[in-house]
């Protein structure tokens, strides 16, 4: 509005920010949420655990954190680290862990509930087992994966997954 016959403009003041105490606390909390989200705190992350026993080496990569209704996989690598072939290795997932998720799917397919047999592992051979899961219940879900060879050796790994609502 530049004309001399225009409405007068508003007077100027020194502009400052003023927040009440509660408001400031609330605003800081609100600002923290996207900041933490950008840092990946609320996003999916995975963890890897390893264990060895006589002749068996097992590594599990599993979702450490993910969100409701997301689908992720537990990837298990089983290796014959000994010098003798192994006839059979059984991978058993803890039902207490698996049943916290919906639509669990094992590859290769299980022959008994949540148990997958792996046969004829030559020395140095590695087999992969996949467990696909969908987050259904909020909170932390924990359970073990037990890998047992036909020779009687066994390895146990702990899985712990946090599901955000």
């Amino acid at each position, binding site marked *: *509005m530049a*004309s001399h*016959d*225009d*409405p007068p403009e508003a007077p100027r003041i020194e*502009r400052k*920010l003023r927040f009440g105490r509660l408001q400031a606390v609330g*605003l800081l909390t*609100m*600002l923290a*949420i*996207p900041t933490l*989200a950008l840092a990946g705190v*609320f996003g999916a992350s995975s963890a890897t655990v390893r264990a060895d026993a006589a002749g068996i080496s097992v590594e599990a990569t599993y979702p450490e954190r993910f*969100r*409701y*209704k*997301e689908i992720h996989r537990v990837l298990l690598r089983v290796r014959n680290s000994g010098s003798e072939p192994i006839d059979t290795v059984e991978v058993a997932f803890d039902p207490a862990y698996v049943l916290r998720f919906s639509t669990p799917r094992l590859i290769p397919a299980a022959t008994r509930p949540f148990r997958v047999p792996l046969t004829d592992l030559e020395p140095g051979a590695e087999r992969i087992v996949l467990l696909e899961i969908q987050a259904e219940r909020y909170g932390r879900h924990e359970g073990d994966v037990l890998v047992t060879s036909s020779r009687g050796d066994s390895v146990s790994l702990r899985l712990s997954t946090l599901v*955000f*609502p």
Partner: protein
Amino acid sequence: METVVRVAAFYLLILLGLRLLGKRDMSQMSPFDLVTLLLIPELVSQAVLREDFSATNAVVALATLFTLVLVTSTLSHMSSRAEMLIASSPTVLVRHGRLLEGPMNRERIAPSEIYGEMHKAGLYDLRQVRWAILESDGKISFIAEERGRDHPGKEPEEATVL
């Protein structure tokens, strides 16, 4: 390409439907306002939230939106330059009973719109208007001429500003 056609088709369909319903049912907002307010959230929400149905995602999205609003309002308050960029400055559309064509064309305001808002302000003649101002929020304010001048006007205490 298909997106453009579908958005255009639904825009026209909703606009037509709202026009057929008549002004009485849509008295608070214009059909254009309704269409854009109805369609924009629908178009944007899927792109923003994607397939993530978790409450965590919704909370993060909301907090991000509120944070952006806070940042925008703070910037606007602390810097007059930012304020001009974010919220446009008011525009005078009528001065002493005369329509200003340049500003009206720039803001795409028709004389009928000004007359409609004048009537709501209790004015019936353009000569009663000292200033008609298109404010930053899109509303039109009227400052009536003072009585006793050459122009017919309202009593100063009756002057109405929208």
